[in-house]
């Protein structure tokens, strides 16, 4: 079996008293795009810089293509980074920027020119080759940074929030371009972002980090469907998180019975609850509107609509339970829904839409 393209083994790193990485481990296969996802200060950029070699680990190791990178300086690692600031050389033309890494490898001038040409074509920069970075738009500069990293054909491409300086529309476009290029050329990439939608859209593997530790990792759909804890559930997408009490388990049907702010519910979960009182979550789009009087749907609850926001393709509702201590939930309906604020509606949740989180309540 070939070695992993990248292996992080119990990596720890601290700045003075602050522990930026606490024994982080994961591995990336050849051709995979791995995102490191988390809020600022979670250690994702620190880890990226450690992979590139700008920061030395206190303990643990990083292997690239099966080789231990301990003590190897950045200039001798088979990585190339796309910086958040782009970090283009302002005194060099686009063509010289792209060729910078190749010139360090003492490749012949003719070969350099042809490879710069090829990469420039891939990122549609051929017309800009003679310009200086200062003459380009933000999106073009972004592409130069990408081309410069791609030109050296690194074992690992590193992306440090590469889209954060672009406006929203361009961001979607460049995101798709990066993913397409990555698939087409099959390079292995580590991609740092704090934007969960970016992570879900691009990754083969998502590594969710918080406070220097990995909270959860897996395929985007798995992390979305089955978040491990409240942090992940809340950070990835929108989630309605509620404390519940498990009151019984029916072995025949595989259903758990719970007591929740929405009343008594049934839950179909492969993961058994870790405690009697526990947190469970469901996604806003999982709620189904039931006509008043219709008694067929499972897990029905009647709630009052507190607010309603029309967002075009969907309708965002905040609903509250009725009674002593009202609890609010967020639900999303596709298309235009003729519901008024203050109206009472009945919702139904499928048993498999409700997920136990691996955290006891209280």
């Amino acid at each position, binding site marked *: 079996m070939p070695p992993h393209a990248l292996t992080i083994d119990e990596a720890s790193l601290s700045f003075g008293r602050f522990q930026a990485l606490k024994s982080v481990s994961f591995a990336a296969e050849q051709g995979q795009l791995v995102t490191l996802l988390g809020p600022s200060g979670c250690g994702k950029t620190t880890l990226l810089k450690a992979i590139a070699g700008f920061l030395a*680990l*206190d*303990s643990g190791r990083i292997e690239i293509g099966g080789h231990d990178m301990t003590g190897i300086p950045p200039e001798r690692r088979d990585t190339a980074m796309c910086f958040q600031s782009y970090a283009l050389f302002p005194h060099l033309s686009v063509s010289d920027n792209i060729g910078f890494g190749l010139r360090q490898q003492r490749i012949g001038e003719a070969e350099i020119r042809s490879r710069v040409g090829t990469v420039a074509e891939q990122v549609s920069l051929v017309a800009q080759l003679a310009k200086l970075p200062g003459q380009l738009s933000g999106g073009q500069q972004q592409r130069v940074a990408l081309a410069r990293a791609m030109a050296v054909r690194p074992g690992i491409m590193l992306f440090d929030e590469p889209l954060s300086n672009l406006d929203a529309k361009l961001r979607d476009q460049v995101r798709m371009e990066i993913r397409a290029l990555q698939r087409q050329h099959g390079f292995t990439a580590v991609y740092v972002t704090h934007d969960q939608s970016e992570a879900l859209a691009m990754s083969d593997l998502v590594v969710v980090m918080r406070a220097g530790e990995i909270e959860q990792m897996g395929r985007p759909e798995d992390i979305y469907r089955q978040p491990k804890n409240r942090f992940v559930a809340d950070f990835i997408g929108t989630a309605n998180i509620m404390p519940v009490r498990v009151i019984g388990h029916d072995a025949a049907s595989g259903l758990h019975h719970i007591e929740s702010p929405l009343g008594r519910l049934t839950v179909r979960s492969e993961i058994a609850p870790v405690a009697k009182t526990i947190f469970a979550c469901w996604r806003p789009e999982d709620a189904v509107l039931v006509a008043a009087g219709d008694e067929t749907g499972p897990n029905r609850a009647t709630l009052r609509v507190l607010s309603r926001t029309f967002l075009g393709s969907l309708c965002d509702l905040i609903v509250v339970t009725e009674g002593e201590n009202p609890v609010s939930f967020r639900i999303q309906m596709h298309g235009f829904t003729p519901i008024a604020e203050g109206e009472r509606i009945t919702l139904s949740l499928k048993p498999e839409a409700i997920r136990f989180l691996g955290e006891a309540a209280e």
Partner: protein
Amino acid sequence: MRRHRSAALLVQTRLPVVLALTVFTIVLALPFAMAVLWSLVDPSHPWAYPAVLPPVLSFRRWIEIWTTSALPQALANSYLLAATVSVSTLLLALPTAYAFGRLQFPGKATAQMLTLIPLAMPGFVGAIFFSALLVRFGVYSRFAGIALGHTVIFLPYAIRLLSLSFAMVRQDLIDAARDLGASPLTVFRTATLPVLKPGLLAALIIVFILSIEEFAISYIVGAPDFTTVPTILYSYLGYNFIRPNAAAISLILVVPNVLLMLIAERLLKSADPATITGKG
């Protein structure tokens, strides 16, 4: 790993710091210590080879210089000249600095370049032909001649420093003050002056120091009858090298100026608008 890192850090930072301090001691501290020693050599007990230290130390040399040489006159000349020059330079520089710091107009960059020309003029060329001009125009007052020359050649410094101060005045504060109905005087007092004051004082001090230190014009225009501190120092360094006198005058020339410069630097640092308005 940790040990390794701290050892590398030591080599990277500590060693050069020690090296820098050593170099500093040799090229600055030791020579100054020597100067202090020489100025304290007792005139009746000369310091001569092979004595490592002067045999007797006293202030007699200082008293002697003060009472017998032209130093008091030179000091008076230098400081009076510097005061005149700093005020006149600042007055001339203010309007121009205001234009550079707060206005946009075509040709601004060229005008800014033009103000810097005196910096590219060899000092003695300027001094000699300036003195020729003084003769031609019949300006025979040494004081007026030197003051005029100093004012012009230090204008670039004053303009540059004051432009930076003017540029730091925040337009939003001016607008806010006007929006709240303040009179032009109040606007100036509340929004402009606090930011401008440290820069003004710093420019005043720096031109003052430059004038005291200037040698070429003072020497060419002033010599031999109008002395300033540098020209008197030069006279002790030339053909009649009188070491203790030169040592004493060196200290008189350097110490006050260093102190003044430290004040100017403090002022320039405090001129940051963030520290005055409380936000960045």
